[in-house]
């Protein structure tokens, strides 16, 4: 029997505010979460969501994940886990993990000596902390682990979680990603590698794009096995229909220039979903606003979807409004994609004004635009590509 993973709850904390619907509504309205070249979650107050003890016991990246998970579980209507606890997993991606804690503790080590380093340092900074703490907080006793693949981390986590359900290892998985790297070391390091934008403007696919804008946040989805979800009367938001993942095996940071690996991941996701390229109504691009990504991603879309469909389908980048959430980007953008498909609207690529040679897709430049309505299922893909050459693509369908 086929076991289909369905999405029953979503939650997000992003630079546009607290809440998944906040992200969707503000982005669709053309609002920006970027201020002075940084995309911080300024509306997020940890103590609104967590106890004093939980705040002390977690790095900010875990705090963001817990808050987003709280919203997602409420959204799914879980007062208590609805299945056997050992059939529910927690899989959370991150690019780096608790680097804020790492930096602070290293300063303590240098200034005050080894005896003053906090015993909480390791449990806070470890990249699997969010997955573990989330499992503890909600009593989820199935598989729990972190996925670590830079900016593809939470697309991998969602893809693997869908597989855990399809394979029969879990009846539900709380999954997604979280990142909080607006710290002195991470900011300096991204700047030194010339990955971030000197102008502080995120303008994916525009000729003047000069790098990404650093952001922070978290996105969490509740996935459940369809028959079990229907049995308990859950409201179904949509489906993870397909997942495709590949490696460029090319360069530590640069994408393979023609997007071969990315194209293959898109093709695998569509094949997994058993959809034709022509059925895709919307593409949520990785669209980082870096010179290299936006060019190779455009080539990848043309190769995977075919020239005609690549030019016909609206392609927009969430990073134009909230910057680059690194390991959280995949999950936050999956949520944005799902809500866009539900409302049959393509949110815009903000700041896109000047076309670049060869970058000639429909990047939705002038505000949100309706997607074709009618009887066709609302199908979209969302791309995530990470340093290290990791490509992960999800194919989602919104419930009708």
């Amino acid at each position, binding site marked *: 029997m086929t076991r289909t993973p369905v999405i029953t709850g979503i939650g997000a904390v992003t630079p546009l505010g607290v809440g998944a619907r906040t992200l969707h509504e503000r982005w669709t309205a053309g609002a920006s979460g970027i201020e002075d070249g940084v995309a911080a979650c300024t509306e997020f107050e940890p103590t609104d969501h967590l*106890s*004093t*003890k*939980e705040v*002390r*016991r977690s790095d900010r990246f875990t705090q963001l994940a817990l808050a987003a998970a709280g919203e997602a579980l409420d959204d799914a209507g879980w007062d208590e886990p609805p299945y056997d606890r050992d059939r529910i997993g927690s899989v959370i991606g991150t690019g780096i993990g608790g680097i804020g804690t790492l930096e602070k503790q290293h300063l303590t080590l240098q200034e005050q000596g080894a*005896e*003053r380093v*906090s*015993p*909480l340092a390791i*449990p806070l900074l470890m990249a699997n902390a969010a997955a573990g703490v989330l499992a503890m907080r909600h009593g989820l006793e199935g598989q729990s682990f972190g996925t670590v693949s830079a900016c593809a981390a939470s697309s991998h986590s969602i893809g693997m979680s869908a597989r855990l359900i399809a394979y029969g290892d879990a009846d539900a998985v709380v999954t997604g990603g979280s990142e909080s790297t607006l710290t002195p070391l991470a900011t300096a390091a991204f700047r030194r590698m010339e990955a971030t934008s000197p102008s502080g403007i995120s303008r994916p696919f525009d000729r003047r794009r000069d790098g990404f804008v650093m952001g922070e946040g978290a996105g969490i989805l509740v996935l459940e096995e369809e028959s079990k979800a229907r049995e308990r009367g859950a409201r179904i938001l949509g489906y993870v229909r397909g997942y495709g993942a590949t490696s460029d095996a090319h360069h530590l940071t640069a994408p393979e220039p023609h997007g071969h690996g990315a194209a293959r991941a898109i093709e695998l996701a569509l094949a997994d979903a058993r959809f034709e390229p022509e059925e895709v109504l919307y593409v949520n691009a990785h669209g980082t606003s870096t010179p290299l990504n936006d060019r190779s991603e455009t080539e990848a879309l043309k190769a995977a979807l075919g020239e005609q469909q690549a030019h016909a389908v609206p392609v927009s980048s969430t990073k134009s409004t909230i910057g680059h959430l690194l390991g959280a980007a995949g999950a936050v953008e999956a949520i944005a994609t799902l809500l866009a498909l539900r409302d049959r609207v393509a949110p815009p690529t903000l700041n896109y004004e000047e076309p670049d040679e060869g970058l000639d897709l429909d990047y939705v430049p002038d505000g949100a635009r309706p997607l074709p309505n009618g009887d066709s299922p609302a199908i979209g893909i969302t791309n995530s590509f990470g340093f290290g050459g990791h490509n992960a693509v999800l194919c989602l369908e919104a419930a009708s």
Partner: protein
Amino acid sequence: MSTTVTKEQVEERIREALIEFGAEPDQISRDAEFEQLDVDSLDLVELAQISEDEWGVQVKGEDMEGIRTVGQAVDLVAERMS
């Protein structure tokens, strides 16, 4: 330094630390058990670190093993100071 610090002062500082750890202030007393206050082994390691910072008292994780109540922790620190 240790001669000028009273047991009451140690108790007050430990109380402050427990509140920082997330314990409910009105539940903290000499007889309160750490388990009831939701204070665990990681908190106790931090408490030991505070004792060393504040009063120069060396308390190792293993010293804390038999400590169940706030009063026992205060007594241990006070004893090491004298």
